[in-house]
């Protein structure tokens, strides 16, 4: 045992145990919760004890029996995602399947301080938008102002037509790109967010201090903050949870897409992949040369968002 661990253990058992369930006023946190270790520093026993406590706490707070797993990454797997932007119809079914699967906070009709969280944002962009110029503008030609393709600044985030897809429109869903070189991980002052061996960027919701530096650092606006306590109707809580994934978050911590770590580590597809009605979303193991994702990267026209930043996303957009 390292000296540091030994000191921690002594402190834990002698000083803290008798007051473990005392709660700090205002922030309403028990001493036991406050003194919890970083997830990666916990032994298997400690993880078990923490999971038991968390399940008990969620039961007290939300009245639901949940099952929190800590399933580790599989050997020889690095997850990748591909999205066919020619197929996407902008229906946002993925957005709401994600909310449900991952226990994201909903907007409460009764509580104005509730804060609605979506991990996926779908952008509507014009395939071609032309505003002819005038002589007075002195442009030289009358061709004018053109918008075509992926100009994020010209995108519409709150499009709401009767029916999708609309003519002349293209849709770009954006979620965490699971960068190989994630700027968010680099800036985190407490190592509360990191890249798992299967390439997924996760957050320890019990370690994050809520400084939001990662949100400033993310070029894809993929991270969300719990500005208040999450609000989820009891009957809508998904009880199948992962410690690093969809377990219910706390006020004041950051969260993000994990490619549904609670599903993918049990051999299932992410919820957004299953929800997509047009099969635009593809998911698989980047290390397997015969996987569908590798085939897409090999054979389709593929691009990644903001390649010039060198973040190396494992999220690929493609066209047929």
């Amino acid at each position: 045992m390292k000296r540091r661990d030994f000191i921690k253990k002594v402190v834990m058992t002698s000083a803290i145990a008798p007051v473990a369930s005392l709660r700090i006023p205002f922030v309403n946190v028990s001493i036991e919760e406050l003194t919890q270790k970083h997830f990666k520093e916990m032994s298997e026993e400690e993880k078990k004890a923490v999971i038991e406590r968390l399940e008990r706490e969620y039961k007290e707070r939300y009245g639901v029996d949940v099952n929190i797993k800590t399933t580790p990454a599989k050997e020889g797997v690095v997850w990748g995602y591909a999205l066919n932007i020619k197929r996407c119809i902008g229906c946002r079914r993925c957005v709401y399947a994600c909310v449900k699967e991952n226990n994201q906070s909903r907007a409460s009709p009764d509580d104005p301080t509730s804060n609605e969280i979506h991990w996926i944002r779908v952008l509507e962009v014009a395939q071609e938008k032309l505003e002819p110029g005038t002589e007075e503008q002195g442009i030289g030609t009358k061709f004018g102002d053109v918008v075509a393709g992926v100009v994020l600044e010209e995108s519409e985030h709150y499009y709401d037509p009767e029916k999708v897809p609309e003519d002349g429109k293209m849709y770009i869903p954006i979620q965490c790109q699971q960068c190989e070189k994630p700027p968010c991980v680099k800036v985190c002052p407490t190592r509360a967010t990191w890249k798992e061996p299967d390439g997924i960027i996760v957050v320890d919701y019990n370690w994050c201090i809520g400084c939001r530096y990662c949100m400033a650092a993310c070029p894809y606006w993929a991270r969300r903050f719990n500005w208040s306590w999450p609000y989820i109707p009891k009957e809508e809580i998904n009880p199948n949870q992962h410690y690093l994934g969809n377990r219910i978050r706390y006020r004041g911590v950051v969260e993000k897409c994990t490619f549904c770590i609670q599903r993918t580590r049990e051999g299932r597809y992410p919820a957004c992949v299953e929800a997509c009605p047009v099969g635009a979303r593809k998911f698989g193991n980047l290390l397997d040369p015969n996987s569908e994702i590798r085939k897409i990267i090999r054979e389709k026209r593929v691009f990644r968002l903001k390649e010039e930043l060198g973040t190396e996303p494992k999220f690929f957009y493609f066209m047929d």
Partner: protein
Amino acid sequence: MKNILREIRYFLDFVFASIKIALTGDRRYYVWLASLVMLVVLGTYAYIYQLMHGLIVTGMRDQVSWGLYISNFTFFVGVAASAVLIVAPLYLYNYREFEYIVTFGEFLAVAALIIALTNVLADVGRVERLWHMFPLIGTPNWPDSMLVWDVLVLNGYLFLNLLIPGYKLYKKYIGLEPSNWIKFFIFLSIPWAISIHTVTAFIYAGLSARPYWNTALMAPRFIASAFTSGPAIMILVLLVIRKYTFYRKYISEKAIETLAQITLIAMLVNLFLLLSELYTVFYSATIHQVSLKYLFFGLEHNGKVYAALKPIAWLSLFMQITSVALLLYPKTRRNFKTLAAACSLNAIGIWLEKGMGLVVPGFVPTPIGEIWEYMPSFMEWVIVAGTVAWGFLVYTLMLKVAKTIEAGLARHPKAGKE
């Protein structure tokens, strides 16, 4: 052993005497303290409310995830750094005019750091977990995270600026000259001052996701704006002290003139760097000009105009240029009324620039192109007022002690006798 015990007794005497000096004064002094305490109480109340409900009580959201707190943090780190402008001329160039005002600078650094750090405390979502970033007990992401660097350099600087003047005052109180070892810390504090604002600039400059901040000019601009607004605030403090307290005879007009010239030169450099930034961004006119465009001209999207920061940006520029005009002309620079006006315009102008004008446009539009406007909530203003009042309160108490001892009005009964 006997010597150590005596030293401890003297030090305790010093502490008790300081408390007594800090808490005695005329009616004006008590009114000033009481109003500050009231603001601190209000701010604390608002902070507890925020702790219970979350940062939802602020105007921030996922689109603009840093706001008034981080703006204030940034500005006041600059104020803290500028103490070096009094320390360096005195100790490096033996500029004696600053001898009796050096503690104003050092304690201003302490007060500014207190404001900066309490603003960070107000901003984090989980304040009770801050120990996670401390060495030994936590898991600080060092050297990767600039926030860890910032916590280290800010706390180090706070320590230096408590130690140096505290030690000198203690020695003066017991009637002895300071030992030479303190010089090591004084010289250390000079580069350290530069480091705190450099690291704070690096927090922003290192983010490729935010082109508005991702510029090599960021740290030089931080230093320039700090070195103009810091002395400007210093001058305002000195003018107030000269007007209202017994300490007026120790503050020479020459010292104020020197500070005014420093303020002027640093402001000219600051405006020059701003010009470089504006030219590079707007002439090349890439897609990255969008944030700066938002700041100065506003943006239009789907027929709606977003220009909340436009008045702030132009007001700030106007204030900075006016302060230059007033400081350039010797007559207005040497007249204390116009000098005070110049310094107020300067400090507020930089507060707008290095506060909201720096932080908010970095988030607008979001990296995926959404335009969302931030306005601080009432709660944020109350909490910020509390943090500033807290800084001023500490500054007042410390200055009261320092100036009383420096003027020789409080000495240990046995001072100079042993």
